[in-house]
């Protein structure tokens, strides 16, 4: 979401009616470089390191680096080998976890015999997230090109030890979708055991979020704006859950992600930073000048999840209308004889409900947009979901 529009671009656009047009360029010299994208945390799970090569701009095809030997060596010299579970994806056993205070070093030997390594990185403990809360704010919207209201979520955190100064965050939002006229019966007018009208949709963050903790002795992160949901969007209609993960990262990792982030977010202003190759913490053992991209992140993790109902949200929040326009008048009330005819001629109609006694008696038919969400979201309630 936070495709950065710089201050500068903003002035241009608001004052002078400047515009941004597509620009066709000729990707000339494709450069094939190894990318290492891995992480090791203190969570107990299968930790993953992906090895692949950069993609040419005109043919974005994933090029995994298969049959490499990948291992993690800890500060005590214990070597843990990762197995290739999928082409280019190397994982530890699922009961593996990093330990805070321990150092870890990644070693990679690719199929073509080249060796790569990281410096030993210390795993920092991530303090718990103190609170995850929200406020009504206004931000410019890419869709309407106006300032729009919405809910801004914030994170507060602190570390009594003062050891961690840099945090990376990511979020995962899950929201319930409730269609206006949920299809309670199937086409044979049999009552559905699992109604189609309630679904769950999950999105994950698509950009990097970093915070610098401040203070001496005790370090704090206060009012860190983690995520913004516009009021006109669907997420906050019925029930919403946000999970935030906090990674305690090293100074070097912080620098790397910052650079990568800025490098990706050109805004066209002359104040954009100089773009170039962003080198992480993986180096070629054989050839110091070889460009190796990506990062092996070693971090302690803590997380927090919150649930919100529309009534919990502060004014002037108002529940947005459903994604599709579903006036009650559009419901077709068919006689029991004609149902088959309707359903056969229009495959996008579903049975909303059946009224046998209360007039108007008949089978209530609604369009798929208004009766079913399973075609665009999952009807399975996630394990963590609390109603």
């Amino acid at each position: 979401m936070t495709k950065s529009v710089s201050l500068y671009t903003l002035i241009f656009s608001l004052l002078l009616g400047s515009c941004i047009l597509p620009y066709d360029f000729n990707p000339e010299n494709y450069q094939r470089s190894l990318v290492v994208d891995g992480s090791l945390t203190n969570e107990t799970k299968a930790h993953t390191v992906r090895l692949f090569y950069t993609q040419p701009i005109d043919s974005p095809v994933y090029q995994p680096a298969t049959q490499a030997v990948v291992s993690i060596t800890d500060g005590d010299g214990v070597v843990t080998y990762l197995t290739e579970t999928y082409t280019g994806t190397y994982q530890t056993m699922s009961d593996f976890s990093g330990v805070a205070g321990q150092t870890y070093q990644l070693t990679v030997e690719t199929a073509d015999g080249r060796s790569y390594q990281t410096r030993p990185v210390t795993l920092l403990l991530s303090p718990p997230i103190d609170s995850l809360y929200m406020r009504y704010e206004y931000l410019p919207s890419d869709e309407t090109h106006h300032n729009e209201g919405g809910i801004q979520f914030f994170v507060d955190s602190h570390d009594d030890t003062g050891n961690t100064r840099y945090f990376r965050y990511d979020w995962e939002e899950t929201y319930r979708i409730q269609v206006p006229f949920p299809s309670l019966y199937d086409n044979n007018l049999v009552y559905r055991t699992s109604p189609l009208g309630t679904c769950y949709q999950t999105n994950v963050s698509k950009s990097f979020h970093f915070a610098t903790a401040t203070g001496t002795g005790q370090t704090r992160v206060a009012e860190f704006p983690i995520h913004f949901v516009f009021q006109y969007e669907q997420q906050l209609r019925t029930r919403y859950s946000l999970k935030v993960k906090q990674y305690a990262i090293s100074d070097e990792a912080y620098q790397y992600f910052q650079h990568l982030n800025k490098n990706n977010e050109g805004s066209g202003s002359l104040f954009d930073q100089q773009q170039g190759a962003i080198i992480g913490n993986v180096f070629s053992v054989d050839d110091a000048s070889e460009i190796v991209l990506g990062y092996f992140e070693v971090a302690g993790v803590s997380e927090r999840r919150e649930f919100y109902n529309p009534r919990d949200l502060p004014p002037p929040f108002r529940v947005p209308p459903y994604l599709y326009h579903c006036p009650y008048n559009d419901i077709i009330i068919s006689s029991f004889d004609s149902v088959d005819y309707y359903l056969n001629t229009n495959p996008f109609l579903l049975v909303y409900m059946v009224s046998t006694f209360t007039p108007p008696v008949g089978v209530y038919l609604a369009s798929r947009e208004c009766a079913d969400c399973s075609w665009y979201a999952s009807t399975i309630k996630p394990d963590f979901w609390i109603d």
Partner: protein
Amino acid sequence: MRQLLFLLLTVCILPVYAQSSETFSGSFSNTPLTVALSEIEQSSAYVFYYEKSWIDSLYVSGSFTATEIPAVVSSLLSGTTLSFFEYKKAIILTNNVIINDKPAIAHSFFNQRRQATNEIEKGMVFQREYLSDGDETDENSVIEIGNRNLMKTGGSITIAGYIREKNNQEPVEGALIYIEEPFVSAISDASGFYSLTIPNGRKTVIVQFVGMKPVMRKIVGFSSGKLNIDMDVEIIALQEVTIQADKDINITNVQMGVTKLNVESIKNVPILLGERDILKIATTLAGVQTLGEGASGFNVRGGKSDQNLFLINNASIYNTSHFFGFFSVFNSDAIQNMEMYKSSIPASYGGRLSSVFDLQVKEASHQKFGGKGSVSPITTGLTLEIPIIREQTSLLVSGRTTYSNWVLKKVNNASFRENRVSFYDLLSQLNHKINDNNLLTFSAYHSNDAFRLNSDTLFSFSNFSYQNFNITSRWDHRFSDKFNGSISAVQTNYGYQIRYDESAPNAFSQNFDIAEKSAKVTFDYFFSDTHKLVFGSSLKTYLINPGEKLPLGEESLVPSLIIGKENGREAAIYLSDQYDISPRLSLSGGARFVFYQAVGERTSYRYLEGAPRNFYSRTDTLYYGKGEIIQTYSGLEPRFSARYTLDAVSSVKLSYNRNRQYIHTLTNSASLSPTDIWRLSSEYIRPQVADQVSLGLYRNFRGNSIETSLEGYYKNLQNLLDFKVGAEFLLNPAVETAVLQGRGKSYGVEFSVKKSGRLNGWFNYTYARTLIKLDGEFAEERINNGNFYPTSYDKPHTLNLVTNYKFTRRYSFSFNMNYYTGRPVTIPVSAYNVKGIPSIHYSDRNAFRIPDYFRVDVGLNIEGNHKIKKLAHSFWALSVYNLTGRDNPFSVFFDVKNGQIKGYQLIVFGNAIPTVSYNFKF
């Protein structure tokens, strides 16, 4: 001439019969002149002609024995206002008019090139005998200079004086003072002073200046002396103006790469957003480039935008733009002129590699209250000239502000109503003339920009402001006609502030400041008008606060972060000598010696030898006490230029220059940005050094109305600054870990044509390259494999056309065209994902270019009526910027969407922008 005719027509001619005797003997004692004359007539062949009323009341005395008649007459007439003219045996008496034996018309038009010695003598007689109280403003009168007794046959004399405007006695700067045979010329300086060394004897001194009537003075020079000349303003409205001043200065000046822009001369250039801006005009000159609309700063001959020295009354200006580069911080109405040096920078200037832009504030009239103003949709400005003590003290006050907030609200009222943009600038200058030899000047300047901007993330700053401030004082003193000097003291401040208060716990203020204090003494010594010496010295101190971030409000949790202040001092001595070896060959040589020290108090980090300088290789922290010397740099900066005149209209010039720069902007963007920080040379950042050699060929055509020039240059640059990928300078306590320094080279050819007349303007084409090489020991210090690569402001081809056509005295039309090659950018070479985030991999820096830039502007100036008596003179300027509405990309950038890398271009002015402005003068 007119008086002579008048005389011939009105003199009452009384024919008197005369005898043939050549001499006269006799005596008069209080005899009426009529009686005396008739007595002489009777005793000689002479006949007298006169107007009776002139001599009615005159009585004469004297005794003569066999005295020649003319001598008798002159003796009799001495002490009266009468003169006489002898023609054969006729003597014509004139009243308060001298008659040359050749009419004045003959002097000016037939241009008597060879005046015989006896003619000179005769002229002197006339002068002495008949013009003892001559009217010095009369073009036909002959003015005596010096003491006749000191006259040496065939010797030279020096005449000196002030050129002033007749009505208000303002000095006229830049007037050309010359005699035609032999051709000797001089230019008046800022106080109107000039000095001219000429052969003695009878000469005609001619003074020319734009907007003034040319003045002719007939002089008879006996010995060195004073000649003040007043010039009348030319009533431009009634006659087409022919600008003649300095008409061949491009040929004869020994300096090259110098351009002088007069504010008046830019009146007809089409303008953007209603502002007539002298710095914008400068960008249409050969060798000066900008990065596009809205980019602050200039690139002069392949120089970076921080390599230009902007001076206003000798005080440097660190940020020359309002509103991110759309306006310059100088209100052109308050500026007299601007000189731009891009090669052969005089030794009295130093501290920047590429150029010097020296702006002179207008001196307010000592005579008459007046003002100038302009109104456009975005800005309004007013400049007042206030005489305080007549002939002595005057004050100039100038102010300008914007009211663009209404535009902001209009353009997008729903979404951006919280935005505020404001700027203003104020300038005042007080001139006090103690006497002809002592002049005091005080000035103060302040500019301010403030923005309140709404942006997309809560972490973006929302209040931003920056200020330029300076005060100057100067004392000009003239020791003699040949020797003058000035002493000045200047204080300059620049700073910016960022305030963020959207989230109370994160509210902060951040700032940057630079304070510069300097004192300068400079002397000019004129051995003769072919030999001039300039010398002096200057002392400068810098104090830089590279940044402070402080919590704002009680709830703020933001920690204070203060980057240690930097101190530096710079001392310079300089000397330059300009000598015209022969009329054809002129040389100018000089040198500047600069001594720079970075001093405490501050800390300095030490890094591991043999490792790239970064966070990990830091080994130690040293503390330097107040005034303790951290690092010293010094060096000689030779400056040399030569001119050889091929013929009257063409010359060839050569120059060599070395410049050093001790203060640098740290920016990772191509243009100057308002959040740039300036840092001093230190133990890690070495001074930048530039050596420039240039060669130029100049030729004028059609009576100097067409000037052409072809200049080539090559610059070798040392320690040019560039930056590591992802370098961060704001609040970075160790900028040396982000900076890279390397060799650079710039070279190019500039061709330009300038025409005056009814169709006037200029055209120029520049081919320019500028390359840099960063080949450090370590991978992170090497860019593009250590090969030369184009800098982000390298634009090989530039074409500028500025034209103006005067249809009538009231209507003039102008047309501008501008083309340049797109600037280099770094483009993606491949894509990859990290933690699910699509990322772009860029490779060689600046390997690609954005599309070329092309723009056409038109403008129409409508002058008010030309009645002499009216409230105010005014003109309307209508203009259309980017007439063709071409989408000129300002920049290109890249983004990843659905795994696909997309390119975008940012267009600043995608359509034609019409503007109307109203300008007035009273």
